[in-house]
């Protein structure tokens, strides 16, 4: 049995910027960013599948770069812009091309791993807007999905690239019309 005195745990007031919205909350230093987003800020779109950094369900974007929210403490995320799945769509509710592509291509089944794929793919396509199928497969190869066999996820990545291009075309067309 343990007789050691349990020290009172530190609590820290932190500010986080998530999807462009500032939040303040109080956390213990060990509070994982995934838990803070989900349970302190109510952004439950970020999912927790393994808590050891392998499955990728918790992936969020930190200053644009995808990172595992289960392998970061909330307190370390201060001063960075965090983007979660809730922040991918346009403010008017228009789905992000990646979201639209996953729907069109049946890129999800149970949907649990999906937020992690969406954050990873949205970042990937910014770096590589016209991937080959092989590059698309490689891009999603750090995330586990148990439902889809990845076939339609890879398709979704390629389709998302097309949608992004199509939307650009539309924006240009509108611009020309003006």
């Amino acid at each position, binding site marked *: 049995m343990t007789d050691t005195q349990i*020290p009172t*745990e*530190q609590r*820290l007031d932190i500010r986080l910027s998530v999807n462009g919205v500032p939040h303040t909350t109080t956390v*213990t*230093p*060990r509070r*994982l960013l995934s*838990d803070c987003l989900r349970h302190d800020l109510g952004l439950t779109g970020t999912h927790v599948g393994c*808590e*050891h*950094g392998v499955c*990728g369900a918790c*992936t969020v974007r*930190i200053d644009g*770069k*995808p*990172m*595992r929210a*289960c*392998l*970061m*403490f909330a*307190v*370390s995320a*201060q*001063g*960075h812009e965090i983007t979660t799945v809730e922040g991918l769509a346009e403010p008017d509710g228009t789905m992000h091309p990646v979201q639209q592509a996953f729907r069109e291509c049946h890129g999800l089944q149970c949907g649990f791993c999906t937020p992690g794929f969406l954050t*990873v793919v949205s970042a990937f396509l910014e770096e590589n807007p016209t991937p080959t199928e092989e590059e698309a497969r490689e*891009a999603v*190869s*750090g995330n586990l999905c148990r439902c889809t066999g990845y076939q339609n996820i890879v398709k979704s990545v390629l389709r998302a690239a097309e949608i992004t291009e199509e939307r650009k075309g539309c924006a240009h067309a509108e611009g020309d019309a003006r």
Partner: protein
Amino acid sequence: MKPPAFRYHAPTDLAEALDALAEVGHDGKVLAGGQSLIPMLNMRLAAPAHLVDINGLSELAYVRTDPGGVAVGALARHAEVEADEAAHAVVPLLRQGLRLVAHPVIRNRGTTVGSLAHADPSGEMTAVLALLGGSMTLARKGSTRTVAVEDFFVGPLEASIEEGELAVAAYFPRLPGRTGTEFVEIARRHGDYAMCGVAAAVTVDDDLRIVSARAAYLSLSPVPLVLDLTDALIGRTADTAVWQDAATLAAGSLEPEGDIHATAEYRAQLAGVLTVRALRTATERAALVDPNGTTGTTSTERSAR
């Protein structure tokens, strides 16, 4: 799977960080990228009383390249080092190894110095530093020392970082002359820790004959193992080399262990195959190196917050 409680320290510069480390002593751990540490905390395999978070130390978020090599600060993420063109030009083995470190998302957060300090013998960067004969810079309150790689790795997950010390930088020296390198590995799944990995460096003379051939081995020994395989290849060219001789020479010095993914014997087989593959590619690359090529000094800095 939630981490145990710890006292959190968030220094904003190196001096503060060293103060904090001096204060917490052996009860403290450094948090940089956290991609190895936090899983261990979540599984409660580690329970440090103090965590010193160095993510606020902008001054350590650098990749500095000079003609002699690449200095990587403690807060440079794997992905930043991997993407650094100047570093790649001077020490191509860095990118060759980094692209094999876990998955890109992990590399976005994990730090190169952190993975060296973690001293996992299956971590690619340990083999890279060992093969290049690099060094680590360790700072403590009031003093700094440089430790050569041979003295840095002490055992599995054990580096010669003392209580109160912080690994502030790693130095990856450029290999001289016409030297080509390659890093190959075989993992069960893409991105997993390798069952076996080999980093090779081959130097050729002006007639493209091999004058030096060395290989570093991953996941085969408690600390990164570098073997000089020159005897098996000396005087040969990429076309005339009998690569298997080098693999045979290497085999005599390898004592792999088995685990659930690969038996010792299978690991030895992989070591042989990968020795051949890595040496062959490194030799081919050596022929393409311009020995008189010069590189300027560049620096990539990033503000930590």
